[in-house]
C-alpha cells in the first residue's frame, strides 16, 4: 500500500467531511428541523473511506440505513445530501427519499436502504451486471452486525458463491444492532467473517477504526475480486460514536464506553497521529482541510435551510418512467 500525498489528503478530507456532516446533523436534529430516522455514521469513517477511495464510479455500492458515510465516500454531492435530509426540493432525491434513501447512480451509489438486509442481493445483481461488462468492476454490499443475520444477506452470499460473481460483502461490526449486542445476536463461535467463509467465500478482517488497515486489507481483497476469483467478504471491527438513531439514550453502553471509544478508537485522530508522526503530512495540512470542510458543511446547512420545500403537486411524480 502506497498512498501519495494527494491521496492521503483526499482520504482525510473524505473522513473529515463525513465526521463533520454527522456531528452537525447531531446538533441540527435537536432543533427539530429534521424529522424521520437519522442514523449517524460518525466513528466508522475509516471503513467507508478506506474502501471507497479504491473504487471508481464504475464500481457499485449498496448501502444501509446508516448510509451518509457511504454516500459521501462514494462521491455523492454533500450539499445535495444535506438538502435531502432536510427534505428540500433541491435534495439529491428531491426530498422524497430522506436520510435512509439517498442514491446517486452516476457515482455508483445504488442507494441507502431502510430495510435491514435489503441491499445485499442487489449488490450481487450489480456484480452479475458488472461481470458482463468485463472490466473488473465490483458490486459491494455494506451490512452491519445486525444485517448479517437477515435471510437476504445469507441468500446473497450463497448466490454470489454459486455464481462466482465479483460481489464483496463488507460487514461493519460496530457491535450493536439498535440496542442489542453482537455478542448476543450473531450466532457463531467465531465471527461474522467465518460465516461468510462457510459459504466458500474468501474472507478478510481488519480494524475498522484504522484507515490504513482498512485500506491495505481491502486493497488485497479488491485485487483478488477484480482478478476474477469470485466473491469476497471482509469484517471490520468498528465503533458507532452516537446512538442507534438520534434520540437514543444509549443505556446499553458500558460505563465510560463512549469516552473510551472517542479516545482510543477515533479513526481521524489515529490518521492524524500516523501521518504527522510519519511526517507524511503536517498538522497544518490537516487543519486546512478541517477548515475547508467546516466551511462546506456550514454552507450545506445554510443552503439546505434556504432551499424550497418540494411542491405538493409533485407528490405522485416519478412513480413510473411512463405509465400509460
Amino acid at each position, binding site marked *: 500500500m502506497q498512498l501519495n500525498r494527494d491521496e492521503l489528503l483526499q482520504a482525510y478530507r473524505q473522513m473529515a467531511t463525513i465526521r463533520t456532516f454527522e456531528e452537525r446533523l447531531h446538533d441540527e436534529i435537536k432543533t427539530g428541523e429534521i424529522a424521520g430516522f437519522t442514523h449517524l455514521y460518525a466513528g466508522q469513517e475509516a471503513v467507508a473511506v478506506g474502501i471507497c477511495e479504491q473504487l471508481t464510479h464504475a464500481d457499485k455500492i449498496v448501502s444501509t440505513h446508516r448510509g451518509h458515510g457511504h454516500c459521501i465516500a462514494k462521491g455523492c454531492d454533500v450539499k445535495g445530501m444535506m438538502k435531502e435530509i432536510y427534505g428540500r426540493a433541491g435534495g439529491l432525491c428531491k426530498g*422524497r427519499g430522506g436520510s435512509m434513501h439517498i442514491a446517486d447512480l452516476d457515482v455508483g451509489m445504488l442507494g441507502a436502504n431502510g430495510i435491514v438486509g435489503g441491499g445485499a442481493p442487489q449488490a450481487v445483481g450489480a456484480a452479475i451486471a458488472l461481470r458482463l461488462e468485463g472490466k473488473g468492476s465490483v458490486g459491494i454490499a455494506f451490512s452491519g452486525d445486525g444485517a448479517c443475520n437477515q435471510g437476504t444477506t445469507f441468500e446473497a452470499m450463497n448466490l454470489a458463491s454459486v455464481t462466482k460473481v465479483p460481489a464483496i460483502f463488507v460487514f461493519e461490526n460496530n457491535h450493536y*444492532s439498535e440496542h442489542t449486542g453482537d*455478542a448476543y445476536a450473531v450466532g457463531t463461535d467465531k465471527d461474522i467473517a467465518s460465516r461468510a467463509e462457510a459459504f466458500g467465500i474468501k474472507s478478510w478482517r481488519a480494524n475498522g477504526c484504522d484507515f490504513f488497515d482498512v485500506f491495505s486489507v481491502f486493497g488485497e481483497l479488491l485485487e483478488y475480486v477484480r482478478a476474477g476469483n469470485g466473491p469476497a467478504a471482509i469484517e471490520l471491527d468498528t465503533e458507532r460514536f452516537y446512538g442507534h438513531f438520534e434520540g437514543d439514550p444509549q443505556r446499553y*453502553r458500558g460505563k465510560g*464506553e463512549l469516552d473510551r471509544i472517542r479516545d482510543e478508537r477515533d479513526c481521524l485522530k489515529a490518521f492524524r497521529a500516523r501521518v504527522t508522526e510519519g511526517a507524511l503530512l503536517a498538522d497544518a495540512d490537516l487543519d486546512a482541510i478541517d477548515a475547508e470542510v467546516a466551511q462546506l458543511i456550514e454552507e450545506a446547512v445554510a443552503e439546505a435551510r434556504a432551499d424550497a420545500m*418540494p411542491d405538493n403537486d409533485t407528490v405522485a411524480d416519478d*412513480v413510473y418512467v411512463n405509465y400509460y
Partner: protein
Amino acid sequence: MAVMNIREAIASTLYSEMERDENIIVLGEDVVGGNGTAGGPEAIGGIWGTTPGLWAKFGPDRVIDTPISESAIIGAAAGAALCGKRPVAELMFADFVGVSLDQLWNQMAKFRYMFGGKTKCPAVVRLIYGAGMQTAAQHSQSVYAMLTAIPGLKVVLPTTPADAKGLLTEALRGDDPVMFFEHKTLYGVKGEVPDGEYRQPFGQARVVREGGDVTVVACGRMVSFSEKAADKLAADGVGVDLLDLRTTSPMDEDAIIESVEQTGRLVIVDESPPRCSLAADIAAMVTERAFTSIKAPPAMVTGPHSPIPFSRTLERAWVPSPQKIEDAVRRVLGFR
C-alpha cells in the same frame, strides 16, 4: 377507570395477560433490548416502549429478543402457536411484512384450513404502522389491506386506549392468528381504560358520532382526522355518522350498511394507496349490499398511487387530510 395512553394500555395489557396465562410469550427485535451489551437486558426496551418490564418479570424463556430476521420471528411464532403457546410477535414496522409475508400468508393463515380444521394457531402479530413521522417510503406504510385480503388472518386496528386493551385482550383469548396494528402517531393518545378484565369483540365498529347526513368510515389515524372534518361540517349543519372500524377482518359490514341506508351517502377514509384498497373493498361491498339506498357514489379518500415521500410537506400531501375528507363529504352531499 384509569386514564392512560395507547402505549401504556398495550404495555399493561401484555403484562397482565402474561401474568394470567403462562402460555403467552413475547418475541421480537429489541423487545428486551440490551442483550449482549454492558448495559444488560432491559437497558433499553423496544423502541416503542410497549414491552417494558416483561423480561424482568417473566424471564428470558418467555420474553425473547431475536436477531434481525423477521421471517424467523413470525415463523417461530407460528410454530410455537401450533405447540399450544400464545406468542405475541412484534414487527417493529409493519413494512417488514415484506420480509416475512410467507410466514403470515402461506403458513400461519393457512394451517387450520390446509390441515382440515384440526389445528389452531393463536399467534398475535403486533405491527407498528402508518405515516406522519417522516419515516419515508419503507417505514410508513399501512399494510392492513394486504393482510385483510388474506383468508385466515384477523386484522385489528385500535384507535383508543380502551380499544387497545379490549382488542388486545380479545386477541390473546382467541384461537386465530391476529394482526394487531398500532399506528405510530397514536401511541400518545390518552383516554379512560376500564379496569380489570376487558374484552372488545372483533367485528363491531365503534360509532364515534351520529349525524345522519353522511356516513364516514375510517380506521386508525384516519378516525381522528375524520372527527376534525366532522367538527367543521357540524358547524355548517352537516351531521356525520362516523364509524371506526376497529377490525377490518372480520368487518362490521352491518353497521356500515345500517348507517348508509339512512344517510344514502358514504365516504371511506383509508391511509393507503388506492388500488385494491380497503376503501375499494368497502365501496364495492356497500354498492352491492345497499345499491338502492345510495344516492351518490361512495367517495374514497386515499393516498395517491405512489410510495410515501419523506419530506414533511410531501408526506402531508400524501396522507388523507381532514380537509380532503371534508371536501369528499361535501362532494357526495352535492352529488345529484
